[in-house]
């Protein structure tokens, strides 16, 4: 039989190996979560530093962002995997992945995401009128109080659509960890159709994981839409 023709036995093969794909989803979701968390943890302050900081720190943050945004993600992952002195700590039980590969992938996806989330947040901060900051200072609040209580709560709301994009991008880009053999969804899918005599299942496997990626991004985006409307400022455009 020609590979590429959809056939019932290949769908049956996928069903029989559903547990492999579930483990792949678990790794993909974990990697997305750790990368986005790292990206937020570094991106949020770096956006604020780019607006409010001065001197070497703001320069360093800005330069790091330019480099990270200017490097292909696959290059970052491979670079981190082979150059960072990550001890080969071993494999994680149950989900069966190399911990050092997972850490390298988290660092690459997380730092790259931080570089983009930082820009999202920087733009949101800058979109909050200077007048509100002045009004807060005019009742005697310190600059820090004004930023914390007036600028940040609004900037975070305005950042949500940008974070939503970032979530989708990071989730899909976890598949790039394929390049270092990390057993996330795409890598595990590949292992399925590389089994002897299973090359006929390539298209069925790829369609299946595409649907899985779609369901993951779609449902999470819907959830974030809800968060966005839930915390929207009444009467406002945001």
């Amino acid at each position: 039989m020609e590979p590429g023709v959809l056939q019932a036995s290949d769908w049956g093969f996928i069903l029989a190996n559903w547990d492999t794909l579930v483990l792949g989803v678990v790794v993909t979701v974990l990697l997305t979560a750790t990368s986005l968390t790292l990206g937020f943890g570094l991106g949020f302050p770096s956006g604020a530093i780019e607006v409010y900081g001065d001197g070497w720190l703001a320069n360093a943050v800005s330069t790091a962002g330019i480099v990270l945004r200017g490097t292909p993600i696959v290059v970052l992952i491979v670079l981190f995997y082979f150059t960072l002195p990550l001890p080969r700590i071993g494999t994680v039980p149950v989900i069966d992945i190399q911990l050092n590969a997972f850490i390298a992938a988290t660092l690459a996806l997380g730092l790259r995401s931080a570089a983009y989330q930082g820009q999202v947040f920087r733009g949101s901060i800058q979109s909050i009128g200077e007048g509100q900051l002045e009004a807060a200072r005019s009742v005697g609040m310190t600059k820090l109080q004004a930023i914390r209580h007036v600028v940040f709560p609004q900037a975070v709301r305005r950042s949500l659509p940008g974070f939503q994009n970032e979530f989708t991008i990071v989730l899909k880009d976890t598949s790039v960890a394929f390049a270092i053999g990390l057993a996330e969804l795409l890598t595990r899918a590949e292992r399925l159709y590389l089994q002897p005599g299973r090359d006929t299942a390539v298209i069925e496997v790829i369609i299946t994981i595409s649907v899985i990626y779609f369901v993951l991004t779609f449902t999470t985006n819907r959830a974030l839409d809800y968060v966005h409307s839930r915390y929207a400022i009444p009467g406002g455009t945001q």
Partner: protein
Amino acid sequence: MSLLRVDSVDKSYGNEPVLHDVSFGMDRQQVEVIVGPSGSGKSTLLRCVNRLTEIDSGEIYLDDEEIHTVDENELRRRVGMVFQDFNLFAHLTARGNITLGLREVLGLSKPEAEAKADDYLDRVGLADQAESYPAELSGGQQQRVGIARALAMDPELILFDEPTSALDPELIGEVLTVMEDLAEGGMTMLCVTHEMGFARSAADTITFLDEGRIVERGPPEQLFESPEHERTETFLGELTGLHQ
């Protein structure tokens, strides 16, 4: 004893002089209106008083304390400000706009702050809008919240920076009414405004500022009826003509 004394203040932005040798004083419970063409330095002068803008030279005294020797946050707590564009905190309700400063700066508890906020909202006629967000309010209502926000901090002096200039004509009256009530209640007010009706009725003193210098200063009758300078007469004449 003057509450506010501005002494030989100079200020420039780069090479552009904005204020030149400006001196005046005002007592407690006085209402002073500053008028002048756009670009004459009126807003800059106000902003120098609460140090949103720093002066280049000269001195400014609040209650006989030079303001640059006072902590800037403490100074701003004592000197309220009302802005042309209201500058309400967009993510907070009318009540929240007032309680934020009360809680963060004065350290009031939440119930205390809310009770005080509601009291001030009532004073500006907005008791029923406490839960509304700025975007749900008209410009006039927003500005009244802005005034309540400044008042609630119990300032010794309030600066008004063209408080009605961004308002539709039909909304100006409600804001001026609040300001007139404040003036009658003995609040010390330093106002930049083009509302000559308000200047005539509420001001104790009018200062005419042009190109960063005080051209003329005196009670409203004097400036409106018998100004010493032709420039004052021309300018006030034009404004009065515009705002009948």
